[in-house]
């Protein structure tokens, strides 16, 4: 018994000793060249990761004060969890890529400032005035505090198979939603895929061609929101405490997709499969992030066009996507200086233009567009202008951390509507859309109300 007690006490002491031995925020480290180490967490893999690593190498070689140590975190959701955990543990990186919801969570929501306000740096920087207004707004929070600089920003673009367009006698891709619907319908009726010739052909000129669909989509609130704004609706009130996804504008927007599925010229795919279907020439049009072109272009062995997201009835507007870069609190003056040097370097005209040209993200500042290599890219590379042209009409989704949950709710109800239509349920589509959007709005407003109550009590 005494022996057991001794073992227990010894174990407890070891655990207590181990508990106390964890280091807090890391100390400054220097490499052999005497450069200060700046840790940067990101989630850019594949070809985008290759480009980013190349840029970081350029930065490290371009000066002798700092060196960026990139740490790849796999996916955005994992990066987000890890950022939150590192803040709680007091062992953050120096800089990280993050969505606005995470920025809000780390600054405004909990009443604590885990990120540094960049205003003192921005005031001394001549680049801020050149940043596109949509990105300035996206990085600026209550009371004009700037918590981030833009990093990887993209817009939705329409990809069209030009060879199929030619077959139905169209020179240019559709410019608005009703054109897209009518082109897609005509293609579905008149064009098929000839397996022997291995290309799309007019059904009237081929034997047993396979069906080609007009438009394929993944159920995603992004496009639905773009359409809603274009039709004259709004997503939320100014305080972002209430959403309006059951308005007539929202119903009209969702109805566009429903009609496509009902009439047979559109279909939904899982995840990013619509990109694969487009590459396999099973579908003539898809709308995807401008960056997806980076992954797709080497797979497309047919003539294709990339144009801005189709325009709507009332407003010229689009919604940007992507993350910003922010600097953490408590990393010391020297590392803060290095972190700012790096993120402002990423937003310099030369680098943001290089990033855009190699990834199909958009440049973050106006003067980057004046650079000769950017002019050349804009004029000569398919798809370059499609996203850049949306920069002046860019809007954003609500930024609160509760919005992430709202987005999941909205997507799940959109999926329910599309599933009912796919199954051919008897219910009138208008009443089906209204019923589900009412339910989604109610649930989202409940989430937002909980969030605002919590926020008020913590501030």
């Amino acid at each position, binding site marked *: 018994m005494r022996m057991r007690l001794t073992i227990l006490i010894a174990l407890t002491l070891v655990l207590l000793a181990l508990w106390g031995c964890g280091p807090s925020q890391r100390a400054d480290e220097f490499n052999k060249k005497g450069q200060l180490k700046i840790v940067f*967490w990101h989630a850019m893999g594949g070809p985008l990761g290759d480009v980013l690593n190349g840029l970081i190498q350029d930065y490290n070689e371009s000066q002798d004060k700092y060196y960026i140590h990139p740490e790849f975190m796999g996916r955005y959701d*994992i990066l987000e969890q890890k950022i939150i955990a590192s803040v709680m543990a007091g062992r953050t990186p120096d800089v990280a890529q993050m969505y606005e919801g995470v920025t809000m969570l780390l600054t405004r929501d909990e009443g604590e400032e885990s990120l540094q306000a960049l205003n003192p740096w921005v005031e001394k920087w001549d680049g801020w005035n050149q940043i596109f207004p949509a990105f300035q707004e996206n990085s600026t929070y209550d009371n004009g505090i700037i918590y981030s600089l833009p990093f990887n920003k993209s817009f939705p673009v329409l990809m069209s198979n030009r060879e199929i367009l030619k077959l139905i006698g169209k020179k240019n891709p559709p410019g608005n939603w009703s054109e897209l619907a009518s082109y897609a319908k005509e293609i579905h009726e008149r064009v098929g895929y000839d397996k022997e010739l*291995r290309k799309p052909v007019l059904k009237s000129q081929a034997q047993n061609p396979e069906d080609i669909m007009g438009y394929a989509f993944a159920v995603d609130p992004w496009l639905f929101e773009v359409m809603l704004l274009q039709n004259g609706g709004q997503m939320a009130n100014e305080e972002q405490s209430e959403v309006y996804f059951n308005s007539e504008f929202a119903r009209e927007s969702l109805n566009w997709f429903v009609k496509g599925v009902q009439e047979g010229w559109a279909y939904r795919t899982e995840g990013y499969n619509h*990109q694969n279907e487009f590459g396999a020439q099973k579908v003539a049009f898809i709308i995807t992030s401008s*960056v997806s072109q980076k992954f797709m272009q080497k797979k497309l062995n047919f003539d294709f066009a990339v144009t801005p997201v189709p325009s709507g009835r009332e407003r010229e507007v689009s919604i940007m996507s992507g993350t910003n870069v922010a600097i953490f609190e408590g990393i010391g003056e020297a590392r803060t200086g290095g972190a700012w040097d790096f993120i402002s370097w990423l937003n310099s005209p030369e680098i943001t233009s290089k990033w855009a040209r190699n990834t199909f993200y958009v440049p973050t500042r106006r003067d980057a567009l004046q650079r000769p290599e950017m002019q050349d890219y804009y004029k000569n590379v*398919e798809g370059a202008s499609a996203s850049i042209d949306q920069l002046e009409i860019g809007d954003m989704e609500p930024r609160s951390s509760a919005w992430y949950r709202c987005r999941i709710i909205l997507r799940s109800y959109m999926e329910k509507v599309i599933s009912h239509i796919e199954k051919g349920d008897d219910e009138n589509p208008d009443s089906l859309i209204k019923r589900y959007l009412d339910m989604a709005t109610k649930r989202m407003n409940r989430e937002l109300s909980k969030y605002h109550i919590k926020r008020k009590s913590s501030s």
Partner: protein
Amino acid sequence: MVKSHARQKQFRALLVHFFLSIGGLLMCFPFFWMVLTSLKSPQEVLRVDHWFPHQKAFYVSVQKGKESVRQVEILENLGDSRVKVRFMDRNVIEQVESAGLEHRQFLWSNYEKAWNKVQPSFTRYFVNSFVIAVVTTVGQVTTSILAAYAFVFFVFPFKNLLFTVFLATMMIPQETLLIPNYLILSELGWIDTYMALIVPWLAGVFGIFMLRQFFAQIPRELFDAAMIDGCSKFGFLFKILVPLSLPPIITISIFTFLGSWNSLLWPLIVTNSQEMRTIQVGLSYFSQAEGTEWELLMAASTFCILPLIVLYIFAQKYFVQGEAASGLKG
């Protein structure tokens, strides 16, 4: 009569084997697709009209000492060793020297590309995954044996309550424990070390539960007889109980090894440096939110799955027994 009965039996066996073979082939299909895709070019991956990689033309050039291989479509022979081609990756038509053209069918180079695409390389990821999986497996099997032994053969206060609490922890989703566990490891200073990747997994309730159920079937009299004959408690465990329980122990080992080998979220959360990463993290590099490099992902998946296939070949019997006993698929 006897002959016809034997024939009937033979026919039935043939029929059963026929259907089993179809089932087996269907099961092999994803592997077959994976290997074929790993040998294709990016353009071919999306082609729905052929299964096998076709002969393709490539233009090979050397720029700044680096070899560049790009798939082309030959449009026209212009004479004078010049050829008009369409570059598939950018859809651009150009005239090139015919000497630079090569024909290839199976792109084995995808394996080399995938292996070297991640930093530092898959070699390091393999070593990490292997070390972590082996140590975790040995540790978890050891703790499961000890805990199950105590739960079955010893009498102590709140034994059943404690076991119920153990079982209840199986219902807590791992995702909810990520941040609390991260905080503990961070306090211990174990982030970005093998300790963080191994220690939290050295005990598992599933293994304890499975072994406890198996040990409970072993007659208590065996334990009593061993004690009367002067055998120590550890002596009974290692000389009698463990040899009798080899099938469930091997099953637990396999499941633990597979779980560790396939783990993605945990290694990403508790490691920062590339040197500490595992093969699943390496695989995630090829599949991003904006798109996937299928041919490289499939090549990397092929070499990552190879050790598991070898393991399966040697431990087939126990995989089947494990699935039957636990109701879980590997």
